[in-house]
């Protein structure tokens, strides 16, 4: 590359970095360092755990869980108590030959009552409840290999079956902690999958009970707010003084200068648009939060249509009978010029499991 161009580009890149230096530094200080330290600590603890645990002692609840894909809306997260590992069976030497079976976990329910789900599982597997005292697990027997396919239709069918079982469990038991797609409990250290799962239910009982209590009579609702960006921009160019002045200046300038001013106008517009998005996000978030027991902010999805840009994607946990209250609040937002709301649910509490 031409050394002069190279130098030029390097200078520009440095200038940009220099400008943002304070922000980057703050970001790293506030977020990264603390989190990294925590992760390293956890990693160390995990590693050490293996060495200090005595033979025969019950290990920390390191259940073998493999998460391959996320179900579609709403996105589920793996249960917090379970560890996501790459290999279904971490300790090769402990695996009995031929003992490759596992249990596919759909969710956790309150124990006691049995319900025959029948062959409604993934690939028509028979789904049943494994009782573990106060809590129970909705499962089907499977191999320890995760369900994987490059065929989208197949994966879709599996996901649908997964959700159907969770919906059914939700209907029958009133409350369920859904697990992520492809959560498989494998045999571990000479224990069968059933024993492993029971041990895990036992170890995590308090956590599960707390969650089941929290989810009782509640449901998850998805709230997505969109806005019409071009219409919003028009509003800004009408109401914002700086924008109006710039627009007037452009008319008066010669070609080259006008071009640069237009660039500036674009930047100012973008900033104003972001400020507005931020402002409305806060406002809506506050009012929605007031209607829900818990709110999780999800990543917004990009849509091609600028007239329907997602500025907010929330998962809300709230009592089912209060869904109308939230609905009224959302109706108010939906009625505002330039805004649209999508309100979905009730769902099992996927995002809060």
């Amino acid at each position, binding site marked *: 590359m031409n050394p002069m161009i190279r130098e030029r*580009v390097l200078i*520009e*890149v440095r*200038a*940009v970095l220099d400008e943002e230096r304070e922000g980057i530094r703050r*970001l790293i200080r506030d*977020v*990264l360092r603390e*989190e990294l330290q925590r*992760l390293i600590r956890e990693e160390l603890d995990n590693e050490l755990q293996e060495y200090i645990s005595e033979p025969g002692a019950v290990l920390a609840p390191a259940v073998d869980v493999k998460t391959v894909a996320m179900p579609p809306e709403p996105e589920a*997260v*793996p249960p917090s108590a379970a560890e*996501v590992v790459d290999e279904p069976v971490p300790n090769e030497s402990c695996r009995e030959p031929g003992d490759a079976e596992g249990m596919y976990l759909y969710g956790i329910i309150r124990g006691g009552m049995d319900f025959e789900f029948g062959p409604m599982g993934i690939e028509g597997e028979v789904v049943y409840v494994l009782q573990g005292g106060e809590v129970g697990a909705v499962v089907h027997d499977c191999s320890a290999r995760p369900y994987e396919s490059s065929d989208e239709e197949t994966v879709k069918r599996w996901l649908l079956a997964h959700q159907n079982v969770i919906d059914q469990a939700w209907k029958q038991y009133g409350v369920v902690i859904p697990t992520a797609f492809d959560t498989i409990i494998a045999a571990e250290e000479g224990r069968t999958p059933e024993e492993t799962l029971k041990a895990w239910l036992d170890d995590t009982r308090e956590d599960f009970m707390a969650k089941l209590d929290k989810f009782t009579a509640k449901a998850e609702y998805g709230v997505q707010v969109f806005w019409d960006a071009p219409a919003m921009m028009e509003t800004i160019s009408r109401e914002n003084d700086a924008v109006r002045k710039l627009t007037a200046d452009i008319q008066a300038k*010669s*070609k*080259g*200068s*006008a*071009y*640069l001013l237009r*660039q*500036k106008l674009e*930047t100012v517009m973008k900033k104003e648009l972001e400020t507005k998005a931020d402002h409305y996000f806060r406002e809506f978030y506050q009012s929605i939060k007031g209607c829900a027991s818990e709110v999780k902010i999800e*990543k917004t999805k990009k849509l091609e249509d600028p007239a329907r840009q997602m500025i907010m994607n929330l998962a809300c946990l709230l009592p089912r009978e209060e869904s109308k209250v939230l609905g009224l609040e959302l109706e108010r937002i939906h009625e505002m010029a330039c805004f649209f709301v999508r309100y979905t649910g009730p769902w099992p509490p996927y995002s809060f499991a």
Partner: protein
Amino acid sequence: MSIDIDEKNLKHGVLGLVIALVEVIQDALRLQAVKRVEGGSLTDEETDRLGQALMDLEEALAEIKAQQGISEAVKNVRDGLDDLVDDVLEQMINPSRWTQAE
């Protein structure tokens, strides 16, 4: 996976990549130009020349893209870059997602 090299594909790919990179540089230059104008260190004439130069560059790029039929290829590269940066930023500012990744 083998790479399917046919002449047209290759041209679209490489040229698309090059133009996309030039566009990125152009964006940076434009940003700096606006900053410099705001800083007030340029005369009116210099400002006008700078703007004109950038405008010519933009026109030239648009022409090349239209002539070579690579608008789509350039857009793909730029969208890819944007998504990449978005993902990285999203992960950086949301540590809670770290454990969920992959």
